[in-house]
């Protein structure tokens, strides 16, 4: 925004900064506190002081004495597959809905909205039975498919909004040059929609990376757990291993934060395109 405005009153400026700083502190504090706690000795987890005896014990314990690395690997495989497939499927669906007027389009839009409404808590029992029948329990594929149904509907909406902002003339030019609709989509339109793809990828990644309910229901046995399921074993009714929990939580949050840092440049433009034209 390079809008030229008359100078703000200094007091107004101070107020603005105070309000924003307060909001920023509230936003940043819990993750920050988690980070601080992870470096405290196990017994000091609830002390208020900042690092009196900083230690890496929690981290070494989590990495060396638990199946954390296995869970991490499982999560990376499942979330990676979900993200790649999710971005691709959202893009094709979003493109079809944006460009073509075909029979079944409005029902499809409703279907996408409807899938957001059916509560996980209720889908989970029949879905568990279905996965058992298909032999997909404890299989990464089972979770990947399930996550796709959570992420793709919203992402397809976002991508539709995104494609709506790309001029149709580009498609027409492609067709004149003898490309079929798939070629136009793949070679001309998709590269232009890169910011939208970044946002879609980010959303899919975060959704799958942070999912708890399905992950703990479908994956059992220490070797098959994902991070979300594994973390539950640190803090349950019987044990309260806050130290390991905080260290594990920090390690889990890092990849999410990295993906976030990569995508955040595009977030504003991407999400807005999706929601204005939704």
């Amino acid at each position, binding site marked *: 925004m390079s809008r030229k405005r008359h100078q703000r009153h200094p007091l107004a400026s101070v107020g603005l900064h105070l309000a924003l700083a307060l909001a920023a502190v*509230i936003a940043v504090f819990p*993750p920050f506190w988690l980070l601080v706690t992870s470096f405290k000795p196990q017994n000091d987890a609830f002390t208020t002081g900042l690092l009196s005896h900083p230690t890496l014990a929690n981290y070494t314990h989590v990495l060396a004495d638990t199946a954390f690395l296995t869970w991490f690997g499982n999560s990376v495989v499942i979330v990676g597959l979900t993200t790649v497939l999710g971005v691709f499927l959202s893009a094709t669906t979003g493109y079809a809905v944006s460009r073509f007027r075909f029979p079944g389009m409005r029902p499809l839009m409703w279907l996408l909205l409807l899938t957001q409404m059916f509560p996980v808590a209720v889908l989970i029992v029949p879905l568990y039975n279905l996965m058992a029948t298909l032999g997909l329990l404890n299989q990464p594929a089972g979770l990947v498919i399930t996550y796709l149904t959570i992420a793709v509907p919203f992402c397809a909406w976002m991508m539709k909004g995104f494609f709506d902002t790309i001029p149709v003339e580009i498609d027409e030019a492609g067709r004149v040059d003898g490309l079929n609709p798939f070629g136009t989509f793949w070679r001309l339109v998709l590269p232009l929609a890169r910011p939208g793809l970044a946002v879609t990828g980010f959303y899919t990644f975060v959704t799958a990376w942070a999912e708890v309910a399905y992950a703990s229901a479908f994956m059992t046995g220490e070797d098959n757990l994902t991070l979300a399921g594994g973390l539950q074993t640190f803090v349950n009714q019987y044990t309260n291993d806050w130290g390991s929990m905080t260290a594990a939580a920090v390690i889990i949050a890092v990849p999410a934060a990295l993906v976030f840092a990569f995508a955040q440049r595009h977030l*504003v433009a991407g*999400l807005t395109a999706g929601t204005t034209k939704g």
Partner: protein
Amino acid sequence: MTLAAAQRGRVRRALGTHWYAWTMVAPVVLVIGVIIGFPLVRGVFLSLTDANEANVQRDIGVNHIPATYKFTGLDNYTAILSDDVFWNRLGWTVLWTVACVSLTFLLGLTLATMLNRTLRGRTFYRLALILPWAVPAFISVFTWRMLYNEKSGLLNKLLAGGGIDAIPWLNDPTWAKLSVIAVNVWLGVPFMLVTLLGGLQSIPGELYEAAEMDGANPWQRFRNITMPGLRSVSSTVILLSTIWTFNMFPVIFLLTRGGPGDATEILVTYAYRLSFVDSPRNFSESAAWGVLILVLLSAVAVVYRRALRKQGEVW
């Protein structure tokens, strides 16, 4: 040309025109059909029976026990709708949804307006404010549980430092309600902030200049330029966030398990409790709750969309 041939011709023509569109959406329709469609149909079916843990088909060791539950029509629904539990949970769920969505929206809008101007440290503020989104939700919720801890949590220690008695953040019905709302708002503001900021940035600056030239004060500029400019963005995010909040399972479940008592239990967590926590697990009643939730949300979506269309929005 016979009628059948005409029909075939029409089908072929439709295929010829639309086959690539259909191909592009086919995988999504297929996956959603299997993964949502089947459980949905099965859920509706279960809700019309008296299935519970004791009478569904199961295997104990090598013995296969076939299902013995039977069709009971709308009995589950009449039982639920004539019971106060449902209406109490619905009341709290609506309160929870309205409180969360309106607070997140107002905070998001305020912060977005503040950030949408030349300002030193703008990038820093923006990054800090959307940070809660980058942390997986279940980790944030765990962190909040640590902060809320009544005996040794940081919040109560800070209060004690100021000479204030410890607050039972999650152990008193009223405080627990406020606490879960606070956490959900904390989690939800970044999404609102980012979408509304995008909306604000798409409003041409000339409009503001012209209004200023005409002597419009800040409030009038906000009222007559910002608000209409944000209409389409906000209508979509409000609908989405209403749906998400109404079904916000992880926040309530991981923070309070619906407690204390059932003070913070929303419809979804209650349905989950029926089929996973309570004993015997009552699958049919849980399914009926799920169907009711779906019906309620669809009704909200339809009414909301109709209201928007009347104001000239297209969808």
